[in-house]
């Protein structure tokens, strides 16, 4: 279906070629997963399939890419629209019209399909994706998961034989992501569509994949069945890590596979108990919020929430998109709207409400890194941002740079912030905010777009902050990260706190939030591979 024949892609900036001499074939009806670090060339590979590389992005492509017998050299993306459907990371930015029904029809209008066919296909697609009740809704009022399903529907109406999806679930909460992935697997099984899918969180999709294309980052593409490729790759979901630890072959890719192999492991662990980080002795309260109310026009985002944060504690804030997480963080920081309630920060200068302080004072008490860290950055180079942060805060020159070197060592100072990777940009924004040395640090969805490696570095960075006595709140959808990082988990829904407790307690209580290891080893309360490894190591030593 898709053939790459000795393909090399180079961009004009003289950097290393993202793809070098790649030859591969994707057969009809396969679900092919593309994995690799950020910047390893996943998007280049995906965009080369429908000719966006190089027709749209520039750069040079050597070799040939053919899709369904059509060479992308002679067929620009618009002439492949009836064969390849492309869905991007942010569905909203790809929408051309403004209601669901018109968006579904847009692609067909371009292909000049007869009106009767269009009418029929729109109805089919609405039903296929379960979005029939949304047909008249404006696209902007849909939730993230709904938008992503509409975006998939909008390319499906032209009946493409190949579907290319670039990280379709990265912005979605776990449930919405499951919805989208269920839709995709259903398309593969029912319609026989060939799917090429890039995804950071392998644990969500690797079980459905027929093939794995792994991009190590040097321009090569490692190609093979998922279990084989993952065996010698350091970029693996927790399930595979557990499998390696327990020595299972073949490596399990789904919870079901792992659970069937895990009987013996569960027995070995029967007598051990997971090691928990010792609870801090009488943690001091760093921030106390009472009856916080945030109203947006038409909705109540936060409905009278009480929140206490303790020094040295990492709190994960979870809940579906639109449940009020961001509104709560902004209200606590004092920069966002807050219609009721009181916040007290027990900072270096005594108890204060950050809302009553001017903005430059408030950030010395509570630091917040917003969902798009790039919003904080506006200067041309990393060094300029660091100097500006020092000046704004009134601290000795070099403070911000020193912080940045702790967070992300060796970041070139003359680089433009927009040229940094997601992880590096996050580190820079965090360093800027930490320059003010706030005792409470709030992070709004920091792990969006981070690969396993960057996430691991981010986790150790946050642990460092907590160890230094700061209170950290991380709003996130990433269950595995929470399991490995947080001391305490708060779950929000409809503007209220529905669960608040120790990580194990909250995460083991519901299957939606349980990490993979917990699902495999249930009913025993294990959360992470590290815990299992520690317990196994301890069991082996006395023997």
């Amino acid at each position, binding site marked *: 279906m898709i053939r790459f024949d000795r393909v090399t892609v180079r961009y004009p900036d003289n950097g290393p070629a993202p793809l070098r001499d790649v030859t591969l074939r994707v057969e009809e009806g396969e679900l092919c997963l593309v994995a690799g670090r950020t910047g390893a060339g996943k998007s280049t590979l995906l965009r080369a399939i429908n000719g966006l590389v190089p027709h749209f992005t520039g750069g040079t492509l050597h070799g040939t890419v053919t899709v369904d017998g059509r060479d992308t050299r002679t067929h620009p993306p618009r002439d492949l629209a009836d064969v390849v459907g492309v869905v991007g990371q942010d569905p909203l930015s790809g929408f051309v019209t403004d209601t669901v029904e018109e968006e579904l029809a847009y692609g067909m*209008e371009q292909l000049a399909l007869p009106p009767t066919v269009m009418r029929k296909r729109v109805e089919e697609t609405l039903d296929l994706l379960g979005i029939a009740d949304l047909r008249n809704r404006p696209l902007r009022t849909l939730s993230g998961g709904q938008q992503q399903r509409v975006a998939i529907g909008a390319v499906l109406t032209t009946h493409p034989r190949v579907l290319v999806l670039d990280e379709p679930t990265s912005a979605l909460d776990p449930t919405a992501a499951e919805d989208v992935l269920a839709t995709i697997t259903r398309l593969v099984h029912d319609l026989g569509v060939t799917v090429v899918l890039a995804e950071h969180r392998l644990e969500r999709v690797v079980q459905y994949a027929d093939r794995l294309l792994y991009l190590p980052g040097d321009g090569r593409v490692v190609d093979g069945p998922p279990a084989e490729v993952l065996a010698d790759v350091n970029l693996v979901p927790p399930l595979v890590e557990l499998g390696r630890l327990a020595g299972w072959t073949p490596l399990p890719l789904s919870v079901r596979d792992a659970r069937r192999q895990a009987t013996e492991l569960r027995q070995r662990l029967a007598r051990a108990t997971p090691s928990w980080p010792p609870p801090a002795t009488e943690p001091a309260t760093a921030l106390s919020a009472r009856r916080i109310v945030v109203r947006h026009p038409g909705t109540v985002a936060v409905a009278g929430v009480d929140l206490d944060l303790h020094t040295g504690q990492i709190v994960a804030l979870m809940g579906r998109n639109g449940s009020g997480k961001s509104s709560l963080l902004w209200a606590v920081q004092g920069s966002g709207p807050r219609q009721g309630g009181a916040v007290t920060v027990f900072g270096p200068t005594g108890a204060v409400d950050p809302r009553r302080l001017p903005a430059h004072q408030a950030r010395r008490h509570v630091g917040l890194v917003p969902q798009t860290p790039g919003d904080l950055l506006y200067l041309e180079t990393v060094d300029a941002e660091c100097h500006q942060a020092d000046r704004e805060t009134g601290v000795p020159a070099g403070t911000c740079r020193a912080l940045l070197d702790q967070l992300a060592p060796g970041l070139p100072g003359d680089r433009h912030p927009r040229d940094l990777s997601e992880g590096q940009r996050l580190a820079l924004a965090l360093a800027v905010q930490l320059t003010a040395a706030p005792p409470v640090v709030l992070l709004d969805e920091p792990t969006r777009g981070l690969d396993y490696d960057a996430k691991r570095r981010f986790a150790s960075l946050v642990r460092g902050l907590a160890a230094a006595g700061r209170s950290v709140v991380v709003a996130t959808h990433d269950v595995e990260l929470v399991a490995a990082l947080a001391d305490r988990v708060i779950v929000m829904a409809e503007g209220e706190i529905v669960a608040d407790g120790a990580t194990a307690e909250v995460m083991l209580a519901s299957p939606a939030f349980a990490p993979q290891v917990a699902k495999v080893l249930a009913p025993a309360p294990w959360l992470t591979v590290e815990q299992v490894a520690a317990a196994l190591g301890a069991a082996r030593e006395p023997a």
Partner: protein
Amino acid sequence: MVAWPRPDDGVVPPTRMAEVTVDRGPTTGAGRGMVRLPRALHPGAWWLWALGLATAASHTTNPLPLALLVAVAALVVVRRRGDAPWALAFRMYVWLGAVIVAMRVVFRVVFGGGQGEHVLLRLPEIPLPEWAAGIRLFGPVAAEQVLGGLYDGLRLATMLICLGAANALANPKRLLKAVPGALYAVGTAVVVALSVAPQVVESVLRVRRARRLRGAPGRGMRALRAIALPVLADALDRSLALAASMDSRGYGRTAAVPAGQRAVTGALVLGGLVGVCAGTYGLLDATGPDRLGLPMLLAGLAAAVAGMLLAGRRIRRSRYRPDRWRPAELLVAGCGVTAAALTMLAGAVDPEPLYPPVSPLTWPELTPLVLLAVAAAALPAWLAPPPPLTRTARPPSAPTGVTAAEAVRAAVPPTRVPGGRA
């Protein structure tokens, strides 16, 4: 084959059903004895109707027919508008009309001239220097003078309110969709711009809020730079993403057109549109020369249509659920044209009642022809099918109730997918 639900079945909310059954069109030939389903009328029909009303209004200063025309426009809007945001714009046009009338009257009082015998009140006159001879500030206010301003203002306000009615009745975006194929690219650009604007506002607000996090104020030159750069970068990213998406979804698949033909079509369309504008002006402005009116309009229209047909033939594209001209559309447009024609006829027969003199003061009169014109203008309130209500019961912020488990369950039965490719 799966039986698909009738397109309009799901759209008719129960509350509308009552009206559907009651609302028969006794006077329409096509709809006689048949239940009319709610549907949106072709936006062009509403615009033609409204232009007809505006033309009628432009041919008289008599306050009685003008007031009746405003009432008719309001009646039709109230009976036949949908529940979309633009449908509420009518009130704004009425306000604007009231402001225009008030301005006219105030201007007449201020720069009065003071002709007229029936002086209502005497304001102190402000003496002006020599060179401003002929202009008077304040002074005695005569009833004739106020009435003249009122008539004049009312005519302008009525024309504006008629166009406002068209705006409230027809979806502006659907009108864009109805543009001929040759103007398709322009239409797309406008639609994209309309949807990008709120996104830019959103990102300005977001970045401004983020500014506060760095402890910087949201005002001043420096803040402008700090806000403008991220917003611009954001807008650029978005437009690139949109362009990539449009490209990969087949936008711009056109057949190659030779340059000569492109020039001819362009000239025809542009020249035609200029002709249409000039013709419309000539027609609406009673003082203009006669040859600028109808002949110019028709010639321009013909040129534009020819150009668009020529250009449209080259475009390989189809329309999803296009608005069609059906009997109801023709009737509505016909009502507007009839109203305009009857008023013009009335003017030709006896211009006196259409322009009631303010001096001497006379009571304005209605002639049967003008009354007939107003009646014709009011007919669409019954002739047009009721509008569909698009409002869904679900509030926009409510998330889907579908859980992952449900989605998986839904995925399990191997649903037959109709229309699958061979």
